[in-house]
């Protein structure tokens, strides 16, 4: 096939540059906004998703993890007695006040868990270890927040709600969606730091025995326990994400910005593809006059739009990669997983397809007799 679409596209270099700039801009904007959305969403439920628990037991109707309400730890024994439960542990995620050495105060979120079990602990531990938390007053703090909390080295001692806290290790990349950094410690220490009574817990994390049907176990636990919610990890994660993203409006704002990027892209690309079509209108008229069906002309326009999409996407995703990397180094949580990159490729094709549709509409109504008018 004669490369009419390709030649037309590359014929006017300036117009091609404008088209590709428009698509690249749209791709970068959508990547950043969707990446932020994804980063925010993942961050809100980070504790839940990394808990390695199958089921979470929490007070009734709490919308997200930061809203945990203490309840009696007696329920823990009822849970452990339920057939199908491999292990169950108490868990705290509660706000506390951190006193910096310079006298300033910061809000932190104390995460207390059983250090003898894998459930609910920190991940990406880069110095020290979970076992170090067994030492009195020991805590782990992510290195992202050392500056905020005034930490300069391991072994440093601070105050949390009037109790002594010693930094024995650090993690990397465990962000908090709220402005309060996570402080990992033993369940017992956490009770002290947060003022929780000795016979209380905020959550119970449950791990099912291998091969147990989780839905069935969830039903069994609901039958045995009262005044608490029994949620699978996925359900609790979804609730928390939904709360932060859609109830607070944070997610909607980010999604709207992504949509705006898409709209801007569509407008720019539509204008340039339409202008290219208008430039070549006489050629399309000639094609129709010599007998080309509309579908042939549509194909030429769609090929131009498709090539613009592929080129614009390739440039856009490359630029986005560097933007995302730079943003991460700057502390922002922007994710660009490959399914999202694939989704954005689909969106780019859609964007260019919509842009081409306007030109196609123009060509559909083109009178081939125009070729006789000079």
């Amino acid at each position, binding site marked *: 096939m004669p*490369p009419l679409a390709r030649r037309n596209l590359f014929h006017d270099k300036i117009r091609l540059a404008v088209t590709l700039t428009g698509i690249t801009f749209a791709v970068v904007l959508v990547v950043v906004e969707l990446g932020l959305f994804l980063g925010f969403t993942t961050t809100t439920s980070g504790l839940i998703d990394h808990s390695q628990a199958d089921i979470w037991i929490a007070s009734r109707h709490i919308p997200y993890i930061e809203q945990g309400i203490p309840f009696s730890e007696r329920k823990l024994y009822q849970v452990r007695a339920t057939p199908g439960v491999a292990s169950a542990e108490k868990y705290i995620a509660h706000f506390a006040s951190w006193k910096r050495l310079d006298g300033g105060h910061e809000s932190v979120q104390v995460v207390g868990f059983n250090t003898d079990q894998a459930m609910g602990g920190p991940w990406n531990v880069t110095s020290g270890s979970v076992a170090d938390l067994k030492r009195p007053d020991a805590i782990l703090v992510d290195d992202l927040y050392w500056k905020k909390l005034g930490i300069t080295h391991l072994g440093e001692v601070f105050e949390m709600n009037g109790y002594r806290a010693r930094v024995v290790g650090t993690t990397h990349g465990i962000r908090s969606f709220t402005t309060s950094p996570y402080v990992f410690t033993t369940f017992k220490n956490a009770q002290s730091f947060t003022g929780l009574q000795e016979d209380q817990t905020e959550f119970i994390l449950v791990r099912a025995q291998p091969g147990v049907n989780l839905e069935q176990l969830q039903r069994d636990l609901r039958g045995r326990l009262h005044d608490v919610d029994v949620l699978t990890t996925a359900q609790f994660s979804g609730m928390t994400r939904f709360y932060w993203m859609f109830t607070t409006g944070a997610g909607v704002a980010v999604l709207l910005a992504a949509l705006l990027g898409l709209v801007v892209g569509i407008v720019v690309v539509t204008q340039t593809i339409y202008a290219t079509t208008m430039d070549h209108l006489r050629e399309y*008229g000639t*094609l129709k*006059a*010599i007998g080309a069906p509309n579908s042939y002309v549509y194909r030429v326009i769609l090929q131009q739009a498709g090539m613009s999409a592929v080129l614009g996407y390739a440039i856009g995703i490359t630029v986005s990669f560097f933007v995302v990397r730079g943003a991460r180094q700057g502390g922002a949580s922007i994710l660009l997983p490959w399914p999202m990159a694939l989704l954005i490729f689909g969106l780019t094709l859609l964007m260019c397809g919509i842009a081409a549709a306007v030109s196609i509409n123009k060509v559909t109504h083109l009178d081939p007799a125009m070729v006789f008018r000079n």
Partner: protein
Amino acid sequence: MEVAIRVRGVTKTYAEGAARVTALEGVDLDLYRGELLFLMGPSGSGKTTLLSIMGCILRSTSGSVQIAGREIAGLNERELPRVRLGHIGFVFQAFNLFPTLTAVENVEVALELKGKRGTKARSEALDLLAQVHLEDKWSAYPADLSGGQKQRVALARALAGDPEILLADEPTAALDSHTGRSVLELMRQLAHEHNRAVAVVTHDSRIADLGDRVVHIEDGTVSSVEHLRPGSDFIPGSHSSTLDPQSPLARSL
């Protein structure tokens, strides 16, 4: 002689606001295979409208148009392009080449529309360029060709798929007289030696002597028909078979 296009009682009117303008009225015309026919007349006389209707680009308001014996007056917008593709090659005043394609690619576009692709299309396109004596310019872009060469490429494109009818609208208007004449000689050759029906709209009376017949259009009607080839029997009936010394063409020559 075999009739390629038969036009009977064709009328074309346009709406211009509340008024109706008649571009053609009751036109009868036969275009024969092996003939080079000129449609001549002043601007706005309706000759290009007639050519458009003969080429299935425009629909007549009333009357009958038959191409290769098939009535096309009732065909819809999807069927008309197929008739054009199957039977007719077009040559335009402004050449209408695709500027981003080379000469051979311009011809290949037309071949592709007729279902020919790849090396076969390339080989046929090169043959067609050779027919119009442009085999050495196959890789040139239109911008690098002279007016006459562009029109020859357009002619090669029109010949793609070997249509039995060639319709040309002012093909020499953008060319100097010598080049225009050589293009017309080529078209006459295509008519006579390849048994094609060739109709040419032209203002250029200097080249009219190359044709077999001249049909004069005035105010949307056929005002006169002149037969330039002695012994020509293209038009059934009692038309003269030689150039009438009093005719508009003879006077202009």
